[in-house]
C-alpha cells in the first residue's frame, strides 16, 4: 500500500467517523426534520416489506427442509423447530433482513445523495446555512434504526411460518410440537441477541450508505461506483460485525462454546 493510499484511508475513516457521530447526535439536537424522517421510514419500511416477506419465507422453508432431511438421518427430526427457531431468531433473520435492506435501501440512499452532490443540491443546502448531515443523514439513520428491527421481526415470523409449513406438510411432523419448540427457545437471551443486531446493522447501513453517497465524485460513473461501494461495504460489514457481535453476546450472556 502506497503512503498516499494509507493517508486517504485514514482521512476516509476519520470523515466516516465524524459523519456517523454527528448523524447520531442529530437525533437529539434541534432542528428536527420530522417530515423527511417519515418519508424515509416509508421508503425504507413499507417499500421493503414485500421483499423481506418473500426472502424470509423461502429461507425459512429451505432451512426447515434441509434440517428435516439431515435430522431424519440421525433420528432427531423432532428438533427441526428448535434448530430453525434458534437459527432464524439469532442469526439468519437479522442478517437476511440487513442484507436485503443494504441492497435495496442502502443503494437507494447512496444513489440519491450522490445525485444530490452531483447536482449541487448539497452545496445549495450549505449555502442556505442548512447542515446537510442533520438534514440528510440523521433522518436516514432514524428510519434505519426503527425500520430494520421492525422488518427483522416480520422476517423472523415469516421464516418461522415457512419452517412450520415444511415441517408439518412436507416432513409430516407435529405442528404443536414445532410451535412448542419455538416457544421454548424464545428465552430472554435468544430474543435479546436477535433484537440487538438489527439496531447495529441499521445504523451501520445508514452511515455507510450516506457516507458513500456524500463522497460521490465524477459524474455517472462516480455515482455507479459509490452505489456499488455502499452495498458491498455494507454487506461485508454486516457479516463481520454479526460474527463479532455473536461472539460478544455469547460471552456476555454466559454461553460456553
Amino acid at each position, binding site marked *: 500500500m502506497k503512503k498516499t493510499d494509507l493517508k486517504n484511508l485514514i482521512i476516509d475513516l476519520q470523515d466516516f467517523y465524524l459523519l456517523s457521530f454527528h448523524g447520531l447526535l442529530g437525533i437529539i439536537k434541534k*432542528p428536527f426534520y420530522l417530515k423527511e424522517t417519515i418519508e424515509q421510514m416509508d421508503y425504507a419500511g413499507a417499500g421493503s416489506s414485500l421483499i423481506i416477506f418473500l426472502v424470509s419465507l423461502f429461507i425459512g422453508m429451505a432451512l426447515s427442509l434441509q434440517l428435516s432431511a439431515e435430522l431424519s438421518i440421525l433420528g432427531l427430526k423432532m428438533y427441526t423447530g428448535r434448530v430453525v427457531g434458534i437459527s432464524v431468531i439469532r442469526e439468519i433473520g437479522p442478517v437476511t433482513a440487513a442484507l436485503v435492506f443494504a441492497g435495496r435501501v442502502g443503494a437507494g440512499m447512496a444513489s440519491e445523495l450522490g*445525485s*444530490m452532490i452531483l*447536482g*449541487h*443540491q448539497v*452545496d*445549495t443546502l*450549505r*449555502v*442556505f*446555512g*442548512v*447542515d446537510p448531515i442533520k438534514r440528510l443523514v440523521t433522518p436516514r439513520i432514524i428510519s434505519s434504526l426503527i425500520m430494520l428491527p421492525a422488518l427483522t421481526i416480520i422476517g423472523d415470523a415469516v421464516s418461522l411460518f415457512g419452517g412450520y409449513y415444511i415441517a408439518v406438510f412436507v416432513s409430516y411432523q407435529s405442528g404443536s410440537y414445532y410451535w412448542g419448540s419455538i416457544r421454548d427457545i424464545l428465552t430472554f437471551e435468544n430474543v435479546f441477541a436477535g433484537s440487538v443486531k438489527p439496531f447495529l446493522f441499521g445504523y451501520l447501513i445508514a452511515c455507510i450508505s450516506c457516507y458513500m453517497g456524500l463522497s460521490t465524485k465524477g459524474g455517472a460513473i462516480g455515482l455507479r461506483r459509490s452505489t456499488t461501494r455502499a452495498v458491498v461495504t455494507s454487506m461485508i460489514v454486516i457479516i463481520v460485525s454479526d460474527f463479532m457481535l455473536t461472539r460478544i453476546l455469547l460471552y456476555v450472556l454466559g454461553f460456553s462454546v
Partner: protein
Amino acid sequence: MIVFDRVWFSYGANQVLKDLSFSIDAHEKVAILGGSGVGKTTILKLIVGLIRPDSGRIIIDGEDITNKSEDELREVRLKFSIVFQEGALFDSLNVKENVAFCLREYTKMSEDEIDRQVRELLRVVGVEEAIDLMPDELSGGMHRRVSIARSLAACKPKMFLYDEPTSGLDPINADNICRLILELSTPPSPPLSKGGIEGGRRGFIIVTHKVFDAIKVAERFMFLKDDITIFDGSKEELADTTIPEIQSFIEELRFKHQGKQ
C-alpha cells in the same frame, strides 16, 4: 467586499488556481470568463466557503474567512445569493416548496404568508404558472428562474453569484435570464420591491464561457487561462485587447453578432 490574496487551489494533483489575487466591490458587475476547467466555478465556491484554498487568504467584508468553521461561515454565506449551474433545485420538492425552503427553515411565517411570498417571487422572475410543477417538468430557462427566486427568498443578499446561468439555454431564454440578472442588480423597480426584495444597487459575479452573454450584463471582465488571470478590465479594454486567447473569444462574438444581423 471580496478580496482574494494569493490564492492557490488544487483538486488532488490538478492545480486549478495559481497565486490568484483580485478584489471585487459589492456593487460591481463582474464576469469571469474562460474555457472549461480553468477554475471559474471554483472561485464562486471559494467565495462562499464551500471549499478552502490550499494557501492564500479570502477576505469578505474585511473578514478573513479562510479558516472559519462551518457554523461561522453561515453568516458569510447569507451575504450572497448563489445560483448554481443547472439551477440545483431540490428534485424531491415542487417549485413552491423549493422557493419556500428557506422561508420554512428560518422564518415563522404562516402558510398563507409563505404562499403569498412565493407567488410574488415567482412573478418577479416570470414563472408564476409553474408553482405546482416538479423540477423535472421545467424547461432549462424556468429552472434557472426558479433557482433565482429561491435564492432571493433565502436572504437579503449583498451580491449575486451566478454559475453559468445561460449555459444550455436557447438564445431567447438566455436573453431573458440576462435581462433578469440586470433587473435584480439595479435599484428595485416596483415589481421587485413588492417581491420583498430590498433596494440598493447590488453587484454580481457571473461565471460563464459565453462571452456574448457576459458582455450584455457585465462591466468588468476577468479572463482565466492555465490557472491564472490573463485579463482584468472593462468592456472597452476587452474589445481592444491584443491577447490572442481573448481575441479568439471576441472573434466568436463578432461572428455570432453578424450571424444574428
